[in-house]
């Protein structure tokens, strides 16, 4: 009996070896020169950031609805996946799109922390082209840039806040309280604001940090004493933004202290749910649905026809990402065989205008764009939208700092928010420190 048992094991082992000879692990090929190009799209359509993630997907869909599916002779097909706003899921979905579907192009995701994981994965897949229209993680175009992961219409978290910090001082604000989401995006946002605000000599009297998915903001808002500061800077995302802005109004802070929001705090997909609580509030961002420009207006109209909603930045960014990719493909005549060359072409694209405004990438891969000071107003149908109060053209991710000095510092985090930096005026492009009084 023992003999029979061991012989069956032996038989199976032989079978395994035969099977083993049939197929061996291999690597993936690039997009090639002809045939169909397969694109995988990742955004969160469930979870805390679902509202924004669905808009992102809609913007992407809209581009391919309005434009031909064949670019430079190559048919474009795409599939979408839900990352639920979660790191592990996002990474798993990226693997699935690339390794199971055989997608040659990967688009997304939405959240900064998920994008760091996707970027790390893409660095191990040099034949896959990554498009990043939304996730704004600073380091993806600063210290941890990945060659084949390009900010096609994307932005850096800290870019609008760096303008905001400078502007806040110009308004005469001297003491600020910050309330930011406690993960990469919020930390980079607060870092940007604090860095430029304190360069002028502004004081940060209190820093509050709320984890992503905080359901009740009352304990944070109760710590904001309007007498102790001149202005409050808030950077939140998704459903958190709705909660914090509603609370802001309910706690009576709206009439007692000015608020400056990050783009995502007063974002179109979210101000819909805020009602009157949002009206009149100001924020800095690289998109404004109310921007008086033919490209933005055309996009608004097309989006409204399709989805009966005013488009959000997520929609515009994903739309621009598709436009950016199509333009690069036209430029190479449909050739994607050399991924390194193709990503260079992607990095060289200059959009003279888009639904966000003019855009191009700097030598680090950071997007240079217009930053808008926006204010929530009501349109003729009584819907909330962001109108433009002021435009700041061609804002670089390094703002008024020398790139090499800026990059010598770590990325903004809870440990480094730029409060005591720069120590020398040499760090500024002009070589002079910004004014300390006005």
């Amino acid at each position, binding site marked *: 009996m023992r003999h029979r048992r061991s012989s069956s094991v032996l038989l199976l082992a032989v079978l395994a070896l035969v099977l083993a000879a049939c197929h061996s692990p291999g690597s993936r090929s690039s997009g090639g020169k002809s045939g169909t190009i397969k694109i995988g799209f990742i955004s969160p359509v469930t979870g805390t950031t679902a509202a924004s993630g669905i808009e992102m997907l809609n913007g992407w869909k809209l581009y391919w609805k309005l434009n031909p599916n064949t670019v430079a002779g190559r048919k474009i097909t795409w599939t979408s996946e839900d990352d639920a706003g979660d790191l592990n899921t996002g990474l798993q979905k990226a693997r699935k799109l690339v*390794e199971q579907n055989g997608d040659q192009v990967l688009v997304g995701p939405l959240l900064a922390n998920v994008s760091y994981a996707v970027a790390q994965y893409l660095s191990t897949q040099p034949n896959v082209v990554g498009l990043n229209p939304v996730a704004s993680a600073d380091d993806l175009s600063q210290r941890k840039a990945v060659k084949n992961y390009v900010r096609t219409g994307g932005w850096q978290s800290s870019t609008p806040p760096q303008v905001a910090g400078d502007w806040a001082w110009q308004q005469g604000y001297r003491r600020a309280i910050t309330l930011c989401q406690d993960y*990469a995006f919020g930390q980079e946002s607060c870092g940007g604001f604090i860095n430029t605000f304190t360069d002028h000599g502004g004081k940060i009297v209190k820093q509050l940090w709320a984890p992503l998915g905080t359901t009740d903001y009352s304990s944070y808002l109760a710590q904001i004493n309007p007498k102790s500061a001149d202005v409050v800077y808030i950077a939140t995302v998704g459903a958190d933004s709705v909660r914090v802005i509603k609370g802001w109004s309910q706690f009576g802070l709206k009439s007692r202290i000015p608020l400056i929001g990050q783009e995502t705090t007063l974002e179109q997909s979210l101000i819909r749910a805020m009602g009157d609580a949002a009206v009149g509030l100001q924020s800095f961002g690289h998109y404004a649905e109310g921007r008086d420009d033919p490209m933005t207006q055309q996009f608004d109209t097309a989006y409204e026809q399709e989805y009966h909603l005013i488009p959000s930045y997520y929609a515009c960014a994903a739309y621009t990402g598709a436009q950016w990719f199509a333009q690069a493909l036209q430029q190479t005549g449909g050739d994607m065989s050399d991924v390194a060359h193709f990503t260079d072409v992607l990095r060289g694209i200059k959009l003279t205008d888009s639904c966000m405004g003019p855009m191009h990438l700097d030598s680090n891969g950071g997007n240079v764009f217009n930053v808008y000071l926006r204010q929530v107003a009501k349109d003729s149908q009584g819907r909330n939208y962001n109108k433009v109060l002021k435009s700041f053209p061609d804002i670089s991710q390094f703002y008024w700092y020398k790139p090499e000095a800026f990059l010598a510092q770590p990325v903004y985090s809870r440990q480094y928010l730029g409060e005591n930096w720069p120590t020398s005026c040499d760090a500024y492009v002009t070589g002079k420190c910004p004014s300390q009084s006005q």
Partner: protein
Amino acid sequence: MTAGGRLPGPRWRLTGALKLGGLALVLALLVSLPFLTGSFYVSLATQGLYLGLFALSINLLAGYGGMITLGQAGVSGIAGYGLAIFLTRFNWPLGVAIVAALALTVAAAFLGALAMRTSGVYFLMVTLAEGMVIWGIAQRWNTVTGGDNGIRGVTRPGFASVYWKYYYFTLAVVALCVALIALVVRSPFGLTLRGIRESEGRMGPLGYNVALHKLVAFVVAGVFAGVSGLLLAMDNNFFSPSSVHLKASADGLLMSILGGMGTLTGAFVGSGVFVFITNYVSGYLTRWPTLLGLIFVLVILFARDGIVGAWNRWVWAPLLRRAGQAEEAELAKEAAREVASGLLSGPPAGVGTKGGPQ
């Protein structure tokens, strides 16, 4: 009580040979997998293996010890975070970091000690609270854990950096762990544990130190959960709060119930179904969480002893009966059902028959 009991004579030999043959077939399939399919399925299988180990660690507590836990992801998270912190903040070599991280899971002793005085629903509540505290620390103690960013930069062992090598590494580690767990549940200690599951109140007067046995079981299960946490961290190259969240604990428990409580194979069947639906079916079905929920409901309604139990009753037992081995068939039928019915039905666990002395 007779699950896995061995009968002498030719009947045992035949069923034993069949079982061994089945095991060999499964092992051969697992070993040849990287040669049969692409990298995606191999990475899914890797995930299925360490999630299965995680479910098995819960099964060890719940299925064998009667201690249903909802905090096991917290214990595996201690190891995962430990590894990530030792590697990225202290720059320790991987081997040292792994040993140190596993040593940290002995912290499970502390968590276990807090929960030891309770059983049944109350044990569930205490472990749930402990898991949430660990999750809270992971999410809020930003300077150490990186908060929602998680900790990036966890490396795989140098010899297992490529996906298929990492798969073999995982397979070897998990196989070793399963062998160890099989030894544990078949040892006198494992039998005592089952005794405690059946009647905690009687084991004390019989001269067993119930609390100590439960505590040791908690620590042993914690170490295996820790190993799965380490494998997860090295697979993803990062560790984040979502791996510690209540959902991760509940998923593990559900996998264990789905596969079959009180069985060694059940955990892996459960994790296989779970991984398949979350990663593969989700591409074709937007409402995949509904499908998963439906499967759980069906299992609870019609097969409380899980997929493995259902297999034993509906396929394995009739086969044995046809082969003229009615006695063996009855054993197979009852083995898993006995455990499941004790845990998942009847009077609320921890009340009446199990809790107090009789």
